[in-house]
């Protein structure tokens, strides 16, 4: 991993307040837990008992939410997130040495457990966190599939089953949202555009530690009665759920703040900090994917944040935003949720496709086919994705007259999406294919995303949605897009940038084995799911009619193959990280800037900032 050879001058940390040095992840967890307990006890003592006159009892939710807020405050204080703002308030801005310390100068591995601002450290932190999140989500997925092995379920009780389904959903969504912009957007992106760091290094650290602070609440909800709503947390069911729902609400609120911070930070970095000469035409396509994604998330997630704040008020303050008995409306929640929810799937998809489009020229040794079309495609998807939310609500009956218009916008999205396909196949055409895992991942994406896209066309059509909405068909469809396309891109990015991030190659044989197991298992599993969905099995059921048994057995079998593949990949990553083959600075002979810096990457990336004179896709021009 990266050592900290910065400028050798001014290594003395004389003027630094000792507080900065004391705080780290342990103080954060300590303070967080202490405050949580304190808040819990105080709330339990001080809050008045519910009276029978209240239609909705609120004390329990108030206690739980306050305890979680206590955890949140304690954690952020304990990690040192508030030092910067208060130093600003006091007019004592951090000195250069202090900032160097924040950047992790001369701290060795300690910096991975602190509020470190160096974008490379944040990238590694994100990478590990993402893998942990996928681990949790994967375990839950296996529980779901095992329970669906027989029609009458019963292995897991319905209450626990609903909690598992919901938390699998939301935690996987969060994992896929951060899986590329987090690790690679932070580690690789600034180097790729020739910058020394992100625009706001401390916001960068903030966005990461917010995610860490968000995870305990969602996991705690297992022990608070779980959530019975699935990841969408539809109201009014969410108001009826046990206190586990409060964990979900807290998780979303914190995560939304993190997304907003990261979005502002990454966008500002790309807009303001590209190297001299890196015009928009010379900016690598991966950057476009990342920026489009976070720029889309920036206005989308505050809406989600608000919807959950209102859920919290309904549960804990007795307001009636969603409770029909008090003039509330479930359709309101659905609108707010999907206003975020549909852009969010492109937040997941765009960086993945951007990354694969970045790799296509490298592994075909020819220029990216029609760069402009790729940019147009990404822009088109961004623009349209804000106008399609209600296709999730065709069947909710909230506005039957609007189904036509939303059918139009939804089907229009297939045009920019098609452009991305054109770019990929155009780049493959007559290239010399260097068969590596990233190359194979491009083919996997073409297939999976094609299936996901065409099934999406059925679902975008109102009459067909009348038969398919709320069935396993939908579940299979979005797994094809988010997992088949998104996660495939993330794993490709991992093996592509692994040498730069760790200085070692990802073990080739093992990653091939894992690739094939995951892709085959995935297609078996979700093809089976398409079939039971077409035949009429609803989503999120713990027991189902015997007629669906065969299809579910297929899916479960496929799921076990995926699990094996993923575990092999996990071992490959850990093993190669520790003792893999040493990698050269540019093992893929690629032309983007991140490969021009030495591995491990020095603290401020570039001794002298580069000047860009051409785009990064000048392959195949050698002989002409």
């Amino acid at each position: 991993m990266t050592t900290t050879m910065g400028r050798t001058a001014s290594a003395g940390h004389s003027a630094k307040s000792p507080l900065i040095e004391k705080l780290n992840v342990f103080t954060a967890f300590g303070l967080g837990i202490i405050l949580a307990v304190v808040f819990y006890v105080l709330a339990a003592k001080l809050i008045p008992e519910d009276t029978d006159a209240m239609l909705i009892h609120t004390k329990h939710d108030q206690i739980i939410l306050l305890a979680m807020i206590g955890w949140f405050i304690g954690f952020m204080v304990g990690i040192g997130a508030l030092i910067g703002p208060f130093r600003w308030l006091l007019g004592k801005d951090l000195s250069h040495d202090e900032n160097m310390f924040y950047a992790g100068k001369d701290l060795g591995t300690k910096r991975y457990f602190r509020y470190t601002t160096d974008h490379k450290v944040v990238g590694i932190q994100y990478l590990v966190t993402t893998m942990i999140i996928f681990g949790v989500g994967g375990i839950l997925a296996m529980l779901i599939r095992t329970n669906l092995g027989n029609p009458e379920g019963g292995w897991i009780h319905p209450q626990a089953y609903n909690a598992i389904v919901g938390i699998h959903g939301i935690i996987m969504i969060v994992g896929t949202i951060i899986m590329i912009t987090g690790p690679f957007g932070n580690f690789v992106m600034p180097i790729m555009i020739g910058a020394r760091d992100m625009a706001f290094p401390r916001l960068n650290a903030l966005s990461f530690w917010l995610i860490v602070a968000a995870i305990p609440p969602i996991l705690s909800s297992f022990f608070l009665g779980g959530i019975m709503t699935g990841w969408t947390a539809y109201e009014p069911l969410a108001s009826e759920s046990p206190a586990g729902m409060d964990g979900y609400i807290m998780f979303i609120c914190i995560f939304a703040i993190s997304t907003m911070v990261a979005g502002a930070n990454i966008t500002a970095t790309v807009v303001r900090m590209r190297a001299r000469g890196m015009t928009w035409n010379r900016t690598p396509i991966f950057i476009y994917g990342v920026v489009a994604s976070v720029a889309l998330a920036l206005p989308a997630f505050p809406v989600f944040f608000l919807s959950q704040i209102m859920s919290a008020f309904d549960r804990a303050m007795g307001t009636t935003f969603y409770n029909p008995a008090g003039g509330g409306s479930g359709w309101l929640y659905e609108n707010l949720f999907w206003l975020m929810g549909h852009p969010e799937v492109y937040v997941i998809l765009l960086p993945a496709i951007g990354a694969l489009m970045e790799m296509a020229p490298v592994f075909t040794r020819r220029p990216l086919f029609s760069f402009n079309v790729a940019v147009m495609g990404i822009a088109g998807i961004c623009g349209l994705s804000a106008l399609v939310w209600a296709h999730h609500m065709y069947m909710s009956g909230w506005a039957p007259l609007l189904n036509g218009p939303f059918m139009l916008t939804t089907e229009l999205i297939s045009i920019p999406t098609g452009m991305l396909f054109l770019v990929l196949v155009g780049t493959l055409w007559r290239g010399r294919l260097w068969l590596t895992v990233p190359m194979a991942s491009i083919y996997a994406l073409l297939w999976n995303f094609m299936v996901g896209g065409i099934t999406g066309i059925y679902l975008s059509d109102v009459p067909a949605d009348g038969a398919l909405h709320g069935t396993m068909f939908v579940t299979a469809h979005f797994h094809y897009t988010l997992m088949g396309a998104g996660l495939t891109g993330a794993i490709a990015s991992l093996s592509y940038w692994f040498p730069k991030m760790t200085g070692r190659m990802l073990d080739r044989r093992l990653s091939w084995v894992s690739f094939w197991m995951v892709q085959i298992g995935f297609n078996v599993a979700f093809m089976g799911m398409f079939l039971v969905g077409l035949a009429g099995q609803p989503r999120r059921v713990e027991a189902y009619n015997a007629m669906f048994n065969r299809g579910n057995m297929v899916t479960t079998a496929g799921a076990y193959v995926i699990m094996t593949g993923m575990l092999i990949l996990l071992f490959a990553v850990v093993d190669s990280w520790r003792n893999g083959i040493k990698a050269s600075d540019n093992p893929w002979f690629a032309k983007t800037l991140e490969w021009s810096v030495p591995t491990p990457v020095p603290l401020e990336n570039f001794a002298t900032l580069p000047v860009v004179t051409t785009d990064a896709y000048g392959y195949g021009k050698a002989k002409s």
Partner: protein
Amino acid sequence: MSQTQTQDKAPWWKRKDVKETAILWVILSVLLGGIAGEVIARSMGAPASETMANTIRMMKVFTWVSAPVAGLVGAIALKSLLQKRHYGDTPPAESDHEIANSPKAAAVWIVTSGLLCLFALVFGMIVMQEDAKSLQAPNAIHVNVTGQQWLWNFDYPDNAGVRSHDLYLPVDRPVIFNVSAKDVKHSFWIVQMGVKVDANPGYITQTAVTPNKIGVFDVRCAELCGLLHAYMQSQVHVVSQADYDAWIKSQGGRA
């Protein structure tokens, strides 16, 4: 497809690899369209209403329309894969051409996908109109559907007092469902008739269908509604008008 054009003299469509790609394209399209269409029709089973029949027909058409697109992508990808492969730790030689873009190909591609979109939209709109017919039918019977955790129950307002847990409908007669919920959101779905609408607390939503087949079909809840959501199911008994009247009488209604 003009992104295959290169510097050499022969017109691009005469080149060997282009011809092979074209053949591959045809084969793949037929395979994809045939298999996918067949699978969809088989899995969705026999329709019990015109609505469902329309849906299945439309999905088959969409499959056949999108098969060539998928087939083309597949053909180009496969052909490139079969053409020049390279293994090892060092990159292959640079590719022997440098086409960085092809406005013609992009234009053709975008226009084509635009037309396909338009087709899908128009087709869908037409089917929507057809399905909406039952909703305006004058001779339609009304059924009030109530979703409550975790059961459906049905009222027959034309015969006050007749209520049931399993739905009874006369064949070939339009039915209008007025759907609502007591507690949380459910989704009323008659599987084999391809109609679905959410049951929202505080609202009444409508959907309609004309069953055209005598038999027993399924009502399932299609929106996660809590603990026993999986068991929120009923049966639909579509019977002849005479049997329907008999049943109504047996339930204390006057048919």
